[in-house]
């Protein structure tokens, strides 16, 4: 219980600090970075008319991802670091992709499905990065880990361990 409380507090502190940083400096700098990098990439893949920063309010989805990866207890630091790097790169690509969906936008509505995917991406990436920890969620749930044989699954039913005491 105490650990859950501490993890929650850590998440709040980290994400609040990152949100403050984003609002004060990060958003502007990230916008500049996108304006420099994105047109070249869009030209390269044949979407030269895409508007950079079209759905900029959704670029903030990196914050919960970073918060979750940092606070996940028991995750190896190497995995945490590599996961953060690859995850942030994926979110950046997600932002580039999200801008391309602006054309599908209805009047007065967000492009619904791309926004939904964009909002879910941090959660999905976190599940992948934190899988060694999250894996116990899937323990004792029938059907999922069917490909991973149980330690004794090949042993004949009549072969049992001798009593130890």
């Amino acid at each position, binding site marked *: 219980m105490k650990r859950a409380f501490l993890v929650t507090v850590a*998440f709040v502190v980290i*994400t*609040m600090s990152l*949100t*403050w940083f*984003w*609002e004060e400096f990060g958003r502007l700098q990230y916008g500049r970075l996108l304006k420099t990098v994105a047109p070249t990439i869009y030209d390269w893949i044949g979407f030269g008319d895409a508007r950079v920063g079209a759905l900029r309010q*959704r670029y*903030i*989805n990196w*914050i*919960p*991802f970073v*918060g*979750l990866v940092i606070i996940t207890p028991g995750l190896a630091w190497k995995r945490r670091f590599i996961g953060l790097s690859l995850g942030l790169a994926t979110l950046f690509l997600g932002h580039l992709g999200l801008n391309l969906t602006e054309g599908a936008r*209805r009047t007065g*509505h*967000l492009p*619904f*499905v791309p*926004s*939904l*995917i964009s*909002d*879910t991406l*941090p*959660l*999905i990436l*976190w*599940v*992948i990065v934190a*899988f060694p920890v999250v*894996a116990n*969620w*899937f*323990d*004792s*749930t*029938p*059907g*999922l*880990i*069917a*490909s991973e044989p149980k330690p004794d699954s090949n042993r004949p039913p009549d072969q049992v361990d001798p009593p130890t005491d």
Partner: protein
Amino acid sequence: MAVPPEDRPIVSRLTRLTSNPQVRYPALVLTYLLIGGSLFNASLDELRGPLEALEERTAWSVHALVSLFTDLTTQRGKLVTLDGFAVSIIIECVGLLEMLIYSACVIAFPAPLRTRALGVLFGCLAIFVFNLLRISTLLIVGRHWGDYFDFFHVYFWQATLIAMIVGVLYAWIKLFVHR
């Protein structure tokens, strides 16, 4: 001699990959989201009436929650006020996105059908309640610390969206799946 499909290296590798929960679960969540989101998007026009009713219902619920602590709150349609500070409840505020994402996470989870159905039902209810707390907090922040309203509006959107989903999903797994 023909090699059975399951013995071909690429097929067996793909089978192994798709049965690995680290790949399968996220892929299933995304698939269900694509299906559910597309269906929802396609029926947005038909759902306009119910969605507007949901916005008003959410506004009414926020008003009811805040009025437990103060008489200074009013509600008209989608507008809730606290001592002169007003917020308008739009469709992004009612927690539908969160419920869709959460439901996809539950439906993709390897648990009995009944457990998943209960998970979707109670989880969406929990998200609705959390969402009321979120809007009520924003209303209080806006009334008393107006300078910080924009910051908290941004903060309570994305950061708490994922935290809320992970929290409710974890509670569902602990209470319903692993009991």
